[in-house]
């Protein structure tokens, strides 16, 4: 298995316009980690894009390979879960950040999330995501802003843009293809129901940009999948009374569990 550092994995499907921003923030995060003695890399998984992504990615890879950028091309589009699972297998480091191609990570804070996941032994650690509307430079909403609680069985409020222990993610079988558009939620519930620890770190992790025609907005049948997800994890509505290791788990480096 890989070293104890961080792979920042960016699955990409036709997000050419946003790749410079996400990759730049990822490479800056790599530099910040390396300055602190933490090995890190950026791994882009291109999921059969049909726009100009591939050409751009090959150029960026040639320019920035020494700064830790790698690109893997999947010829056939396999969907988000498959792209993430490919990243889990191809990553060189123990910890993996799963970052959408239109996300932006806050470079200076990544080492603190790395510290949090190592010190807690959690399967996943996440922090606040500031949500900006396209064209606006100030956030107006926030998500991934609370610890795991029973209410997560009714709705998802934790994005996949987080850091994970790659070993634990592989151990639970990786991402499921069964719930298109709800892969994030399915994974958090799967980890929680598997007794894994999931920790909320009250720091800002990155930026999430609201874009027209995003996957969750444009996906057909989302409501059906939502009901299916609830059927899988909380069919009789008893989860609120069942103990979960992840429940209300909060940790801040230098302060400890809260």
């Amino acid at each position, binding site marked *: 298995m890989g070293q104890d550092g961080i792979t920042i994995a960016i699955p990409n499907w036709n997000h050419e316009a946003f790749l410079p921003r996400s990759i730049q923030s990822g490479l800056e995060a790599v530099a910040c980690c390396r300055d602190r003695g933490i090995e890190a890399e950026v791994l882009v998984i291109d999921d059969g894009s049909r726009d100009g992504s591939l050409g751009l990615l090959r150029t960026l890879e040639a320019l920035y390979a020494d700064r830790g950028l790698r690109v893997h091309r999947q010829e056939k589009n396999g969907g988000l879960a498959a792209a993430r699972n490919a990243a889990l297998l191809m990553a060189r480091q123990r910890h993996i950040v799963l970052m959408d191609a239109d996300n932006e990570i806050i470079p200076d804070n990544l080492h603190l999330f790395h510290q949090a996941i190592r010190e807690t032994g959690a399967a996943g650690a996440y922090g606040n995501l*500031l949500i900006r509307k396209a064209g606006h430079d100030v*956030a107006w909403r*926030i998500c991934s802003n*609370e610890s795991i609680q029973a209410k997560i069985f009714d709705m998802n409020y934790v994005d996949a843009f987080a850091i994970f222990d790659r070993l634990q993610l592989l151990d639970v079988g990786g991402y499921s293809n069964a719930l298109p558009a709800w892969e994030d939620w399915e994974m958090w519930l799967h980890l929680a129901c598997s007794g894994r620890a999931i920790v909320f770190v*009250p*720091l*800002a992790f990155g930026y999430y940009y609201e874009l027209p025609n995003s996957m969750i907005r444009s996906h057909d049948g989302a409501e059906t999948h939502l009901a299916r997800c609830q059927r899988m994890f909380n069919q009789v509505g008893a989860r609120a009374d069942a103990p979960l290791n992840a429940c209300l788990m909060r940790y*801040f480096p*230098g302060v400890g569990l*809260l």
Partner: protein
Amino acid sequence: MGNDAPSFEKGGPHGRCRVLLVIPGKVNFFYNLYARWMAEGFQRLGAHVHLCELPDVPDGVYDLCIVSCVGEVLHAVGRDEGRRRLRDLRSASGVMMNLMAECAKTRWFRNVVDPGRELGIEDIVDVGFLPQDDVVAREGFRYHHVFDGLLVTQLQQGPAAGGPPSLADRPIPWAHIGMHTKGRVALTDRLIGHVAPNGFVYLSEVSPIKEKGSPHLNPDHMRRVLRRTAYYVWCAHHDHFFMESLRFKTAWATGCVPIKVVDEQSALPADLAFASFVLREGQVTDVLNSMDFVAARQALLDEYQRRPRFEAGLARLMDAYGLDRRDLPGLAVDRQEDTQAPRAA
């Protein structure tokens, strides 16, 4: 302040004023805190004080009963049982007051006062930096303001953080804690981008605040975080100007500097207490980047030293209701203006 408080046979054992403080207990810790501080203050003023949750109130009569937010106490006990118990307590109390520590212009104010009014509790004691009698009296309540200064013992013992002001052991540059609102998210974004990215951000959704099992931080969590923090920054979750005095007190106790952020349009009252810690949103990042932490911290300590003690407001309240109390030297109880302007150091 009203002038038609109910008459009642005053004085408990040894002629001491009997004060009962009823706390919510497991919900909304800040109302527990205020009641505990009041208990200490009333004791220093010579009262015989009992503090407990509503189901634990012992049989007896009281010269003064303060319910630390009727709405929260009912929430903790259950509405029907709570109402029954409070009605019983009302008939056993000379004066019964509803404690509030909220902005009177928000909907939260209704949660405080409406349940009290239903039970015939028409006296309100408001703890804070700024009197809100204009709003509360308009609603027909008898109103009494207590300036939220430090207790004599708090000043004598000093902040729990102790030692001279220093940034050593404060690796968290700023902390922003509160309910999630659009304005708070925007402030957080500016702090991350223009001050330091690694601030403590805890903006949770609106839900009941419980001692355990809720997403909110409890007083112990707050202490642990803020003792590692330089600047405790916040803005209101509503559009009205209000000084959140508990946040100032928490900053004082934990060794950090409070920074209240207001929008550009807010009209600040003249002679505002702790005005140097109130910043316009347009200036907050520049000021924080150039602020001398040690000097700002010392200014906070100095201003608390100059402001009235918490006991002074309680003494004034007892006087207003004709309740016997002990004289405490140096409280300047008779000087109403002390709640507005600092005394000379």
